[in-house]
C-alpha cells in the first residue's frame, strides 16, 4: 500500500465521506447515544473495532464469496463478529465491558458497518480495508464526540459527563454555572437532529469555500509542487 493510498483512505474516512456528515448513515445509534461526549466516543471506539475486523474478514474472503449471495454472507460475517467481540469483551475485559457493553449490540443496528463492507472491503485487499474501517470509525469518533459535547453543554452545561464511569479518577467538567437550568431540547432526539443538521451545513460550507478557493487560484503552484 502506498502512502498516497493511505492518505486518501484517511481523508475519505475522516472528512470527505464522513459517516455522519457526508454519508449520513447509522443515525439510530448516533441519536440514541450522543447525549454526552463520553458515550459518543465509547460507541465510536467499539465501532472502530468491529469495522476493522469485519472489513479485514470480508476483504480476505472476498474471492470466495459469489456475487449473488454476498449480502447474506456479509450480514453473517458482521453479525458473527459482533457477537464474538461481545462475548470476548464480557469474558476478558469485564470492566470495559460494563462501560462499552451496551454499545456493542447497538453496532448491529449501525448500517455503516455493512455499507463499508459492501462499498470498500468487497473490492479491496485486506490491508487497505482494515485502514478504511479504522478511519471511517475515526471520522465517526470526532463527529459523535463533537455532537455529544454540544448536546450535553446545551442540555446540562457539562462536558464529559459520565467520564467517571470510564476513568473513576476523572470528573466531568462543569462549563456553565452550576445553577444553569438546562436546555432539555439538547438532550432529546430532536435536538440531536437539529445539531446534526447544523454540523452538516458547517461541513458543506467549508467544502464549498475550499472548492471556490481552488477554482479561483490558478492550479500552477500545485503543479510546481508535484514537479519537485
Amino acid at each position: 500500500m502506498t502512502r498516497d493510498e493511505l492518505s486518501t483512505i484517511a481523508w475519505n474516512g475522516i472528512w470527505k465521506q464522513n459517516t455522519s456528515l457526508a454519508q449520513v448513515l447509522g443515525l439510530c445509534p448516533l441519536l440514541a447515544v450522543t447525549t454526552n461526549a463520553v458515550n459518543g466516543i465509547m460507541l465510536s471506539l467499539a465501532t472502530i473495532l468491529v469495522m476493522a475486523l469485519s472489513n479485514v474478514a470480508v476483504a480476505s474472503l472476498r474471492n470466495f464469496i459469489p456475487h449473488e449471495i454476498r449480502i447474506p454472507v456479509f450480514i453473517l460475517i458482521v453479525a458473527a463478529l459482533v457477537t464474538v467481540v461481545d462475548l470476548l469483551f464480557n469474558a476478558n475485559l469485564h470492566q470495559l465491558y460494563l462501560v462499552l457493553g451496551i454499545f456493542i449490540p447497538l453496532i448491529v443496528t449501525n448500517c455503516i458497518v455493512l455499507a463499508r463492507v459492501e462499498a470498500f472491503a468487497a473490492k479491496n485487499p485486506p490491508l487497505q480495508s482494515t485502514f478504511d474501517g479504522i478511519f471511517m470509525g475515526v471520522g465517526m469518533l470526532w463527529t459523535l464526540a463533537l455532537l455529544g459535547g454540544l448536546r450535553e453543554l446545551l442540555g446540562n452545561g457539562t462536558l464529559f459527563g459520565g467520564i467517571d464511569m470510564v476513568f473513576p479518577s476523572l470528573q466531568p467538567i462543569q462549563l456553565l454555572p452550576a445553577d444553569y437550568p438546562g436546555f432539555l431540547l439538547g438532550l432529546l432526539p430532536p435536538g440531536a437532529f437539529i445539531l446534526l443538521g447544523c454540523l452538516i451545513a458547517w461541513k458543506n460550507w467549508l467544502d464549498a469555500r475550499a472548492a471556490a478557493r481552488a477554482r479561483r487560484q490558478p492550479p500552477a503552484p500545485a503543479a510546481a509542487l508535484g514537479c519537485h
Partner: protein
Amino acid sequence: MSEARAFSAPGMALRTAAILFLFVIIFTALLSGAYQWSKEAIEASALEEKTKLLGDVLPVDAYDNDLIRDAVTLPPTPELGLKEASTLYRARKAGTPAALVFEAVAPDGYAGRIRLLIAVRADGSLAGVRVTQHKETPGLGDYIEPKKDRNKEHPWIGQFVGRSLANTPDKGWRVRKDGGEIDYHAGATVTPRAVAKAVHKAVRWADRENARLFAMENAK
C-alpha cells in the same frame, strides 16, 4: 457440454447454496466456540455483579447466610407491579430473619417502567433501594440512578434508607410537591413520584407478607 451444465440455473443455485451453507457452518462454529470458551468467565462475572448489586441495597454485615442461594421464586405480584415471576432473596443473621431483597416495578415512570431492587429489613425499615432499569430522560429524570446523580454525597435514592411504615405516614411517601416528605429535582417530578409510590407499595407488601415469605420453601 460440461461447461454449459456448469452454468445451468439449477447447477448455479446448488453451487451458491453450498457456498452459503459452508459460510454458515464456519461462522456458527466460530460463534459456538467463542460461547463455550467465554461461558464460565461470563457466568462468574454475572454472579459477581449480582452480589455487588445486592451489596448496594443491603450491607453485607446485615446477614450471614448465603443470600444468593436462599431464594424463592415469586409468582407475578401486582402489589410489586410485577407481571412476571421474580426472585426474592432472604437474608438471615444467626438463623433469624434479617431482611428481604426483591424486585419491584414502578409502572408509571415518565418513559415507561422503572425496575427497582428493594431491601426491607425484618423490622419493616428500608435497607436500600436501587434502580436497575429505566428509560427516563438522560440528564433530567435519570438522577434516580446514583451513578447519574450529580449529588454524589447524598444521592437522591438514599433518602429512602431507614424509612418504614412506622416512621413515615402514608402521606409522607409522596414527593414534597404533593405534600409528602420525598425530595425531588425541579423539572422532573413524574419520575420520583413513580419511584416513591412503588417503594411505598413494596414496603407495605413486605410488612404484610414478611412471615409467610421467610417460611417459604427454598427454591434451589
